[in-house]
């Protein structure tokens, strides 16, 4: 393979395979960025932990069946300086998130674009009950 073909092939693979790698400090290969979904539900737990924060979200489908999703967010190192604390979200909060789900279809993924259930933005520094 000549150099032109080799580099062109490599670039094509890179562009198609990794366009989703915007912020992650490591590979997000296990999440399907080509097929994002919107999930709305009630927070069971907000885990302010390393290497990632997690939202455990209770999601109901149209038949009333509930599924517990484990959703990976950015690390404290990425969001603490932006004002997010362990108190920014609480159990019972109703939210919407955009999720890149696991390729396997299991109820897990990484999320972005978090907002309140009415679509309004979340102020991570807002005073919440302790």
């Amino acid at each position, binding site marked *: 393979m000549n150099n032109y073909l080799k580099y062109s092939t490599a670039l094509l693979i890179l562009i198609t395979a990794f366009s989703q790698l915007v912020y992650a400090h490591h590979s997000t*290969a296990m999440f399907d960025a080509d097929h994002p979904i919107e999930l709305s539900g009630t927070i069971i737990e907000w885990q302010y932990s390393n290497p990632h924060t997690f939202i455990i979200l209770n999601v109901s489908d149209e038949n009333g069946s509930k599924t517990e999703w484990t959703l990976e967010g950015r690390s404290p*190192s990425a969001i603490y300086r932006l004002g997010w604390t362990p108190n920014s979200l609480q159990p019972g909060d109703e939210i919407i998130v955009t999720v890149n789900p696991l390729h396997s279809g299991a109820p*897990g993924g990484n999320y972005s674009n978090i907002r309140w259930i009415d679509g309004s933005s979340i102020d991570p520094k807002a005073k919440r009950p302790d």
Partner: protein
Amino acid sequence: MKQLDNSRFSALTKIIFLVSTTIITACSAEDSDRILEVDNSSNTNMAYPDWRGQWSRASGSLNWPSEGYEQAGPPPLTDEYMAIWQGYTALQEAGIPAGDPPSNCLPQGMPRIMKMTYPMEIIVTPEITYIYAEWNSQFRRIYTDGRSWPDYILPAFNGYSIGEWHDENGDGTFDMLAIETRAIKGPRSFDSRAVPLHANDETIVLEELRLIDDMTMQNTITTIDDALTGPWTVNQIYERELEDIIWAEYACAENNRHLKLGDEWYFINQDGTLEPTRIGQPGLIPAPENSN
């Protein structure tokens, strides 16, 4: 942002230097061999730079070259390692984070740590400059005491670094730290795109750290590695914060839900099941009691 008080810092560094010189002298009677290796005689009147504060990577991609491979072009890998990289790429496309050791909480190692995905602190003393990286709460030690390379160095992910201060503008204050790092342990990759380094772990990394202005630092990083067709130089820019500095703890093992078992990767769900991450992957989820 706060402007620097160079006069105050220069005085402080001189004090630190005098104290450390005194300590070295006091030790000379019982450690004369070591003192012979420490040559600060030409540096007696030199001041050290003020590199305090918090340094964060300038905005840009997390690709090894900040401008990204789409703009910078593909990495200069040998044919063998280009094929390895393309193999990793195909696996990642299928949902397997192949070739990216930090996915399993391993340190990034050199040179990737200097991408500074999260901020760093630079602590300058005459004998050692320390670089603290928030990602995985790691320290690099850069020895500037004039030592030679040891006969044997236990490999480490961040390697073993010897530095040399330079006064490029001749004003009597050091302004550039040249660093050579060897004995770097693997596995490592240049970035989360899994651009590989050679499995022989004979990487040598050369760095030149210098300020562009009071609030901006450039690290010119040259990697010499057998996976490459030649030395690969990239420039990483860091931006400084001097006021209201916030540090966060980073303990990767706390709640890492990316689990590698053999060649397979799993995602640990809240209920403890090991969810497959790729289509067709054998599951490790306990079967319900009433299943057939």
